[in-house]
Each structure stands twice: as C-alpha cells, then as structure tokens.
C-alpha cells in the first residue's frame, strides 16, 4: 500500500484522525483518544489494476455505482482498502457501565487497486 504524500494522484491511503475531544465525545469514550478513519483515494490507471483489492463484491458494488452515474466512464479498477484492523473502544454505555468492544475492520492500514 502507498501512503498519500504531496500531490500524488495515484491510489493511496489518506490518513484522517478524528479527535474525540474535538467532537465532544471524550466524556463517554474512555480509550482511545481518537479514531484513525483513514480512507483510500486516487486513480487506478490500467497498469496498476490487479494489485490485490479487498473483495470482488465490494468492487462490483462500486463499479455498478460508477456505471449508473456515468455509463461511459472507462474505469475498471478502483482504489480500495486492502488491509484493515479493528478499533478497540472502552466506553460508557447508556446505563453507565464500562464496556470494552473491538469493532472489526474499522481502521484502514493499506490501499490498493482492484
């Protein structure tokens, strides 16, 4: 996977961090202090197509959207997550209990072209 840097327009992973304190969630989420909601963005020219993607079904869904919105788009490869990991949260639930939960596939570690 490639991390976005500078003005590269290729498929890469963009880092995006949501600070719970900034959005006023630090009172009910004890740990961690924020969420790395990284995402994939960029072009997938044909010579990059075929680098392992996430799931054909996911790719098909996105391709259908593209076709529906622009039938003549000559896109046959998308920039998608290729490696993800879980987000572990320690938080208060509505009854004031402290709960620990691992939410799978929430953090994108790497992107690639399907």
């Amino acid at each position: 996977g490639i991390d976005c840097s500078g003005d590269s327009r290729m498929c890469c992973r963009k880092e995006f961090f949501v600070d719970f304190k900034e959005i006023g969630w630090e009172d009910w989420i004890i740990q961690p202090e924020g969420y790395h909601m990284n995402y994939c963005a960029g072009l997938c020219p044909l010579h990059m197509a075929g680098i392992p993607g996430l799931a054909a079904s996911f790719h098909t869904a996105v391709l259908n959207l593209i076709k529906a919105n622009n039938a003549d788009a000559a896109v046959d490869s998308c920039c998608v997550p290729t490696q993800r990991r879980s987000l572990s949260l320690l938080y208060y639930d509505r009854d004031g209990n402290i709960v620990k939960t691992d939410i799978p596939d929430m953090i994108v570690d790497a992107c690639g072209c399907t």
Partner: protein
Amino acid sequence: AAQGVWCPACGLAALAPTMQRDVLIALAKQSILSKLRLPDRPNITQPTSRGALLTALRRMRAQHTDTAISPGMLRDNSVPHLRPGMESSTSRSVRLHFRFTRELAGSPEILQATLHLFWAVPSPRTHPVTVRLLQPDATGLNVTVASETRLEVQRAGWATLDVGRAVQSLIGEGSQRLTVELEVAEDWQSPLLAGHRDSHRPFVAAQARVRTPHRVHRR
C-alpha cells in the same frame, strides 16, 4: 475526488476541504454509533475524570493478577503444560531446549547461529514476546540470562533470532545445551504451534569452523 473533479462512484462534485472534513467526521460518528448499536451517543450525567478512571482500571487489573497467584492457589490457565521437548511452562512462559550434536564438541569457532521460530498468532494484533537465552551455571542447577530480546509479533510465520554469541559462550564453557525461554502475555496460550508438527518445530541452524591445532615447528 480531487478538487474540481467529480466523484466517479457517486456522481457528485468534489466538496470543499472544510466541508469534506465535516462529512468525514459525521461519517465517523455514524459508523461508530451504528457498530456499537447505539442510536445516539450516551449522555454521561456524572463523568469520572479520565485519570481516576485509568487508575481504577490499572488497580483492578493488578488486583486480578495478585489474587490469581497467591500461595496455594493456581489459576486454571497457569497449570504447568508439559509438552514433549519442553521442561516446564506456565501460561506465561515456554522453555525450549536445544542439544548440540557431537560435531560441535571440541570448542569449534561459531561463525553463525540462528534460532528459527514459527509464531502461531491467535488474532491479528501486536503480541509482545520476550525471548531469553538462558545459560546454566557450572552446577547446572541455576541459570543466568545470557541475553534478552523483546519482540512485537504481528503475524503468524517464521521469525529468526541471532544466537551466535550465546552458542559460542556455551560451547566455550563445555555446555552442549541452549535453553530459550519465551515469555508472552497471559492471553496468548502458546506462541508456538501446538503439537510441534515437524514442519514447524523450532530449530537452531549453526555454522561452525573446527579450530585446527596450532602447530609450532621448533628448529
């Protein structure tokens, strides 16, 4: 989509950076709440200070381990596991013993020695493990730590560790046995594949040079 270009998937024009950030934050909130099955963020009427809370959690964790190892009482998963080739282990540490063959007798010069281990990782996250090379003393009853290495294991597979110096010093002292201790976090039942299938059995590969006696010719 980059600025000024429309999104091929949704057909919308690219958003201004500030609006893009707001949309991403809203998406993050929605995604976390939906995964936690919460209609909205809980309202905490009497928040506890983060510092006090973390201290309480740390104390709770420490208390949990103390009660477990008080004299006379064993926790289930700390029952010693005796496995072939393993002398004794608790849920926190495994000991491996490697015996050197005769070819290594006679204090050769160890050019290279590498320990090969196949990690069995229960879940895709970072697993800290401490690898200690133990050296028996002259009586053989006590052991000292010859070296200690801390590793972060992230995925299953083969890993190597240089043990050349430890093997050289053991050979130099006439011992023919290298003991390796693996200490892991408690919730990691066994860092190695259970059952020790031959294809994944730990091994040490050593390259040695036999010292040729130094001949002196006297004229």
